[in-house]
């Protein structure tokens, strides 16, 4: 008999105990192994399997790493993890292959007379600490900055925040999650007053419809997509792909609907119009649990330095909201969204059907948007109007792109305005942080300083004289790198880069610190479904490589803050996590104790009375809800979520005569973000060796462009030459070109625009105007 899925799983479970050969053979029972392979495995190979989360995307799959003689030699999916149930994607399976890369940063490098000199790590840390101290003495606290990452572990983010905000006393701390998650955060805060999704991945097992908004999950969140596909084949659940580009996700879905960039705002409003117009509103839910508000309009795009914006929310009533929606009838919206009125009504009818469970998924399409906060609000409007929220199989679900964008950037709060609990603007939150950190309360400044884009503008202006980047590659990933690369090269700013591999960012560094990779240190990550996951160090790192958290601590000690960082080198992860947990005590955000995380493949917060809370705000599942409330959006003082009146506004830059194409950027399944890790994995590099520019075949025909021909993509900011790709991995709509950004040889972000959402300050990488010509 053929193996069914369940027996295959039990196979995999048994496998952990068996030797490598048996392990591999049982994984492919249908495939006979050639004798060559068996010869390749040493006799009596006995792999030691250790659990942890995957190093790459925000899905947070559980992995098991097989080590032998102190080397990581195999990776498989953790069958005990409810996230991925034993499955991974091609990046996950091969992740450990990058750490043996020949150009690994194994020692600290200090720039002396224009050349990098190998330096003992302790000496390099002395230089960093002295430089930081001298800069503060000469130019004040706000002349030093730190730029971290959604890939920083929870302890790393915590120590960075404590060092900058608690010890030094500056809010010059931001992270690359500003480039991917900030709009999701402000969306959550404005609508619910509490960050992060209310549902969890188990929604997939209950939903009838999956509607993905500008989100190519088949490539970007492949393991979650495979769970959706499983429900599609087994239960007949339906996938609807709403996007600006035809992708693998579109071909796998039941229905693919394409729209013109930026018009998602209008389509979402049109869906709300239809829901109200057809009487599909869940009246009792809206009356009991929702308020209506509007904010400022015509809010700008932040393309100029020192741009400031504060929204002024104003309460409105249902009638006013209904009146506002009259501009968004499907017929009117169809004209500029290029989505037919029929398709808009079809989408609305799915959300409006009280007997259908719907989950909406989105990631960068909605977040990297000059109206990202609004778009997130509008998504919640749809789910709030229909009451399809916080129930198994029903809910909006904002996905993340980095392994700890939630766990570190959002929960620990490595943003300029954030503290581990709350924000710097709030006195109560500052007092709590000061108490736990044991620092004078006055030391934590009450005013946020630079968000990511503005931070690098400040470097360019010369306001920031010292910057330390960690686990991040801004000179590939920032928008408009054509401005920020020369900025970082300026003598006025001292640049420290902590990384595992050399990158275009480390190329401009004054000091390069060799960081430990993921499994070469212990740590904790938090994924998209509020799941905190712990792992223990599995292998030794080469040379002088050091965990990032420990490098921060060493510098703090050298700067005279030793008493605030009393952690031990062997045990600092545990000590820091236990200190951090105090911030979130209580039913609304309690974190699981370390003993639990060590044993289990992650736990979802709020972790109350030994139990993960899978659906927040729903009294049935969430102990933090008021009794008898049914639903309690306790992030807001009155327990009511907000339905926001948010209009359609055009993009910061639209195609015109001179620059006639939209430029959309994104990713591919083989590479993760800037490719500094995945491009060093031979399997992945061979499968996807370089970036490309995708054309619609009609556009290519008009321009006389053949597949593979070199094309120069130019905007008002810069240009980039890439080979053309016509109907290969993806098919953009007419008038749009698409470029993946992983390739440091072809820096497409020299071309992109640094316009951002005025509320979240998250840049829009998906829309700017370009022209194309044969190179």
């Amino acid at each position, binding site marked *: 008999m053929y193996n069914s899925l369940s027996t295959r799983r039990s196979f995999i479970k048994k496998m952990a105990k068996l030797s490598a050969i048996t392990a591999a053979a049982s994984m492919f029972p249908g495939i006979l192994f050639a004798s060559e392979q068996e010869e390749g495995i040493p006799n009596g190979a006995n792999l030691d399997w250790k659990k942890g989360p995957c190093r790459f995307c925000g899905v947070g799959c559980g992995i098991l790493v097989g080590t032998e003689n102190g080397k990581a030699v195999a990776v498989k999916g953790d069958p005990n993890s409810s996230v991925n149930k034993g*499955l991974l994607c091609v990046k996950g399976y091969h992740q450990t292959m990058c750490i043996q890369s020949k150009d690994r940063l194994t020692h600290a490098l200090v720039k002396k007379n224009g050349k990098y000199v190998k330096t003992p790590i302790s000496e390099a840390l002395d230089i960093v600490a002295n430089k930081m101290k001298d800069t503060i003495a000469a130019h004040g606290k706000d002349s030093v900055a730190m730029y971290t990452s959604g890939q920083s572990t929870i302890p790393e983010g915590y120590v960075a925040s404590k060092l900058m905000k608690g010890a030094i006393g500056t809010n010059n701390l931001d992270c690359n999650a500003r480039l991917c998650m900030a709009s999701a955060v402000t969306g959550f805060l404005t609508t619910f007053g509490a960050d992060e999704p209310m549902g969890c991945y188990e929604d997939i097992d209950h939903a009838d419809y999956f509607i993905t908004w500008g989100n190519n999950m088949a490539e970007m969140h492949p393991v979650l997509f495979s769970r959706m596909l499983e429900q599609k084949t087994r239960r007949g659940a339906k996938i609807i792909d709403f996007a600006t580009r035809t992708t693998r996700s579109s071909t796998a879905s039941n229905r693919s609907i394409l729209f013109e960039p930026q018009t998602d705002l209008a389509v979402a409003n049109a869906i709300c119009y239809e829901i109200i117009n057809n009487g599909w509103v869940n009246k009792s839910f809206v009356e009991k649990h929702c308020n209506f508000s509007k904010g400022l309009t015509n809010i700008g795009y932040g393309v100029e330095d020192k741009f400031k914006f504060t929204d002024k929310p104003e309460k409105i009533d249902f009638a006013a909201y209904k009146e506002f929606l009259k501009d968004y009838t499907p017929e009117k919206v169809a004209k500029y969204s290029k989505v037919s009125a029929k398709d808009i009504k079809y989408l609305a009818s799915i959300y409006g059907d009280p007997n259908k469970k719907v989950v909406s998924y989105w990631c960068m399409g909605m977040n990297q948007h000059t109206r990202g906060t609004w778009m997130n609000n509008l998504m919640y409007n749809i789910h709030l109007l229909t009451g399809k929220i916080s129930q198994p199989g029903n809910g909006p679900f904002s996905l993340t792109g980095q392994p700890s964008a939630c766990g570190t950037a959002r929960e620990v709060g490595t943003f300029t305005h954030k503290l581990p609990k709350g924000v710097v603007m709030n006195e109560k939150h500052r007092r709590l942080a000061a108490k736990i950190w044991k620092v004078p309360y006055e030391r934590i400044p009450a005013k946020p300083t630079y968000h990511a884009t503005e931070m690098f503008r400040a470097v360019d202006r010369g306001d920031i004289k010292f910057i330390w980047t960690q686990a991040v590659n801004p000179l590939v990933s920032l928008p408009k790198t054509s401005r920020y690369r020369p900025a970082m090269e300026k003598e006025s700013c001292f640049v420290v880069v902590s990384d595992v591999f050399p990158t275009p960012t480390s190329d401009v560094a004054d000091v390069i610190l060799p960081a430990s990779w993921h499994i070469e240190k212990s740590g904790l990550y938090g994924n998209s479904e509020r799941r905190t996951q712990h792992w223990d160090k599995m292998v030794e790192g080469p040379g002088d490589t050091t965990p990032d958290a420990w490098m921060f601590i060493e510098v703090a000690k050298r700067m005279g803050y030793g008493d605030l960082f009393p952690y031990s080198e062997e045990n600092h992860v545990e000590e820091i996590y236990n200190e951090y947990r105090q911030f979130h005590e209580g039913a609304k955000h309690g974190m699981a104790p370390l003993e639990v995380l060590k044993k289990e493949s992650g736990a979802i917060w709020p972790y109350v009375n030994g139990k993960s809370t899978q659906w927040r705000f729903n009294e049935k599942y969430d102990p933090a809800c008021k009794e008898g409330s049914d639903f309690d959006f306790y992030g807001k003082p009155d327990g009511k979520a907000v339905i926001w009146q948010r209009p359609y506004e055009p993009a910061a830059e639209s195609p015109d005569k001179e620059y006639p194409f939209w430029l959309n950027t994104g990713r591919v399944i083989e590479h993760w973000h800037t490719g500094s890790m995945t491009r060093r994995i031979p399997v992945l590099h061979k499968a996807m060796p370089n970036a490309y520019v995708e054309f619609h075949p009609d556009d290519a025909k008009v321009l006389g462009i053949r597949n593979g021909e070199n094309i120069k993509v130019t905007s008002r900011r810069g240009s980039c030459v890439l080979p053309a790709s016509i109907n290969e991995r993806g098919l953009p709509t007419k008038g749009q070109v698409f470029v993946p950004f992983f390739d440091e040889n072809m820096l497409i972000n020299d071309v992109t625009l640094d316009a951002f959402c005025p509320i979240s300050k998250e840049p829009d990488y998906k829309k700017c105007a370009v022209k194309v010509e044969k190179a």
Partner: protein
Amino acid sequence: MKKRLGIISLFVLLFIAFIIIWNFSYQTGKEEAYIPIIEESQYKTYIPSERGVFERSEFALEYANMPVDKNHQRTLDSYYDNRAYHGAPPSIPHAIKDEKNLGGNTCLQCHQNGGFVEKFNAYAPVTPHPEMINCRQCHVAQNSNTLFKPSNLAKVHAPKVGVNNALIGTPPMIPHQIQMRENCLSCHAGPAAPEEIRVTHPERINCRQCHVPTDRVVREIKPFTRTNSSNDE
């Protein structure tokens, strides 16, 4: 006279009103029914080249639950024997009735979805590209076992099974070209799949989530000029 003028002007007024109202409702009707036809058709013209990944996925569950007919399995050897070299179109190993036929429906009767064929005591292999109906453009019969002149042509070594994974236990990579073979399940699942390459988990569908090709042409591209921060001294 006055009366008649009155009646005529009434009808004229009514007629004008009719024209105005009809026109108005016609215009709004047009507005309501507005569908940008030209824009819509553009999306339908092009079938994404990646679509094949998910083709035949409607049979995936059946494949997963299908018992294996051990006595009628193909092997990888017989699969390669039927090809001039690895990657070449297979020849037709059975007699063909109608020499004038392109192939098309005649071939597809058995090769679109497969099934057991009594006469050959075997399962019909499934084609990964049923949309191409001039089958015999590429697939020809073997009507003779002799050669016109002997040849020194050496058969290229076909990829082997079990050696295509990068690490122990990782999913094997795709060691063959994907062009014309985008649809994985047609050869790797079902009763006609050679036993060595039959997938254990056809229900997974999104094959290229884990299995990536190894034979992409790596273009010669100038490496990023790392002027200084290299680790080498």
